[in-house]
């Protein structure tokens, strides 16, 4: 889900993606590269993202991932689900009437 969100903002390649998530979450979420690529492949397989070869800022040949329409829809769906869940958990955990 987070990969999708990141890619929604702009298309990125693998390394930049990992860096971005690390930075944005203030190092709270360390995405291990080892699980990044399998996740990317899964997204690619389900056609939630598209990939094409390009050149990165450091002049390396990289594969740039871009969100597809289906991916955007999926992202919305996942986000709303997560928010609902979060809401539920928050309510249950809320201090209040005992």
């Amino acid at each position, binding site marked *: 889900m987070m990969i999708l969100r990141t890619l929604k903002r702009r298309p990125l390649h693998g*390394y930049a993606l990992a860096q971005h998530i690390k930075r944005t979450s203030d190092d709270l979420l360390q995405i291990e590269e*080892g699980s990044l*690529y399998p996740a990317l*492949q899964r997204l690619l397989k389900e*056609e939630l993202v598209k990939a094409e070869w390009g050149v990165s800022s*450091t002049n*390396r040949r990289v*594969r740039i991932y871009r969100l597809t329409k289906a991916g955007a829809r999926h992202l919305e769906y996942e986000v709303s689900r997560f928010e609902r869940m979060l809401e539920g958990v928050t309510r249950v955990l809320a201090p209040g009437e005992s």
Partner: protein
Amino acid sequence: MNWLKHMFSRRKLYGELSEEIREHLGEMIDEMVASGMSREDATHAARRQFGNVMLAEGNSRDVWRWAPIEDFLLDVRYGARMLRKNPGFTAVAIVTLALGVAVNSTVFSAMNGFMLRGPRIKDPARVVVIVTTDPLREGWGWDRQPVSAFDFAAWREQSQSFEDMAASESGDFALAGEGEPERLTGMRVSANYFDVLGVSAALGRTFSFREDQSGRNQVVILSHGLWERRFGSNPKAIGQVVRLDGEAYTVVGVMSSNYRLGVYGSPPLWMPLAFAPESLLPKARENRTLEVMARMKPGVSVERAKAEMEALAKRSEQTYSGTSKGWSASAISIQHYISDEFGVGMRLQMGVVLVVLLIACVNIASLQLARGAVRQREFAVRAALGAGRLRLVRQLLVESLLIALAGGGLGLLLACWGVDLLRRGLSSVADISPLAREMTIDQNVILYTLCLSALTAILFGLAPAFHQTAVDLHSTLKEGGRTSSGSKARHRTQRVLVTTEIALALVLLIAAGVFVQEILDRIHAGFGIDANHVLTANISLSRAGHKGPSQQAAFFQKAIQRLEATPGVIAAGATSTLPLGDAERIVTLSIEGRPDLSPAERARTGYYAISADYLRTLGIPLIRGRTILSSDSGQAPPVALVNQEFVRRYFPNEEAIGKRIRLDASGLERPGWSEIVGVVGDVRNSFEERKHAPQVYEPFRQKPTSVMTLVVRTGSDPGVFAGMLRRAVWSVDKDQPITAVQTMNQVMVQSGDDMRVVNILFGTFAGLGLALAAVGVFGLMAYTVAQRTHEIGIRMALGARRSEVLRMVVKKGMVLGAVGIGSGLALAAPLVWLKLGLANDELLPFGQRGPVFLAAVFVIGLAALLASYIPARQATKVDPMVALRNE
């Protein structure tokens, strides 16, 4: 569906993935270097941070995999490689399996051709055969007798379950015209016959309504074969006139070439069946000559049809009391009717070849087990790398499947050759030849072979697979190269395999032995005649020219005289039924002075109309009284001869000569009494028969018949005499067809053909099974002993004498052998009662089968002894030092 697309671009995908990950790593390193690390440190740090690169790449690839199929393909490739590395094992396994599968496919294709393919008519499932049954008489054949014309007409009208009923009977016809005169066995059928069967003619038409009434029935339909052979496939054959039995018939149709009704193919011609008025009277109900078929109405089941026929028969019995007492009727589906003829023999063969296949499987299983010892390390390593037990088992099963498919394919090829061989062999057995032609490898056979191969793969693959994968990782990997001498479980499996093979081999040997015993017994018992130097020929007088009985008798008289006058002839005669050549004719008889019985209750005897010198020609001895003389002419008092069995049965305590008997042989209401003037030796009329039956002989001049077989005893080789025989007969009537000119020895050999063909098949399969079992048992025992070489070396180094070691090993082997023989005997026990498709009283008494069992046990025991002794001797000959070093 996307994965389908992805599958093809997989390689590219993986390449891209690889590159991508490399680049990622590169970027990480670059950044670290930029922040001050050395390149070397950066590389290490980057990799550490990334995690397990290979695993990551592997997991990424896994996303695109279609796991089950890919795993399976991997297994296949790996298995094939393993099998290739071990060519010896692979070759032996494949060939062994191929042999087992080949014999099974061959027998199955025979069964397929004979039993499973239905008659080629419209919707055969709806057609039944109507038969009459005599429930009081048990045994063979009494539950399906033909129908009389009267019953046919009555039941056709009265029955409700059938759309229509048709009748047929065979008849002999003499076909004359251009070319040689020929005798054919054709069929007379009711006009609706082909309509009931739902077949139409290929050329012309079938019979039309009412064409089976006398006056309109001078028409004939030809079979395709006859049309090709005799009319040159001429389309203008329709409308031509042919002469059958001297009368003119018009050809109105030709049947298509793939019409087939029963086991014996199709008759050469059909003509309409016109019922003689006498046959439609109630008292002619005894005269059962018709084969009746009926097509059931839609919705009617065979059981219902059967029940209705029983009811109708009962009604007829009550309405026309006194006729056909006790007889009932039934309906049998045409499929069962045909296939029952071959049922037992076929099933027996199937049983034998299945046992052969089992033996082959056991062989392969033991081979695999032996090989498993060598592969212990391979499995240990794989298990250490993370392979689950099931994965390893699956791998081994795939290997077994590969062997099975290869073996099955090779077996199918061998079966092609085998079926061809069988077909040629069976073609010589006249009766079955049209069907033999149909025996081919068709899709049923291929399907059967495939399924069988797959099953055998599981059979010989599963147990070894489980064993081999039960690895003790620790000890196996530790020993570094030493092949383990085997776990207890492996030894137990080996023992089970050996005893199984011995048991199966014993069963095969006994079955084959029983069969051979029956045949040898028959041949040994003789037939009561001297078959050497005798030539036979069949004459069937056509109605033209020899219309009356006196003319018939005159013809044969003259023919015999001409033959006797020919140089080189010692004696000549004629008989209405040739022993071993024709089916014995059975007639009812009455004895003077004994209570008069109704025809259904009278005693039965075999009947022969013979010439004066017949007995001398065939070497049948005269026991008492006199034989038939030339003075026993048509005007003289009627006389008869009986055989010893007849005397034993009907005159056990009195003199038979001088008594008078009456035989219902001529179709007359009340034939006259004949006086018994002599007693002759017993003759066995068929190969399968063991017991003697009563037989009566009457002079043909007193009881003429139109069909007789000439017999001629020659001084020299009878075969060369055939031309002279023909000349002699044609000098009496040049248009007379002569058929079946054979020596008596040929007739005798042919009569045993049925049993002999089965025997040859049996023997071949049993022999194959035994060879496989011998190889298997020997190999396995040798291997077992070889495994103990180390142990034997130790024992001998410690001072054991060779003889002691030998005794120990052989004793162990004999124990296995004993267990195998014991279980084999238990399995073979039912064979004591093996019927071999013969009626009860035709078999050797069961007690006499003992010797076969004993002989088989002896042979197998000896084989087991040798199998344990010889390898043991080899092992003990080895220098103990070498044996000790042997790992």
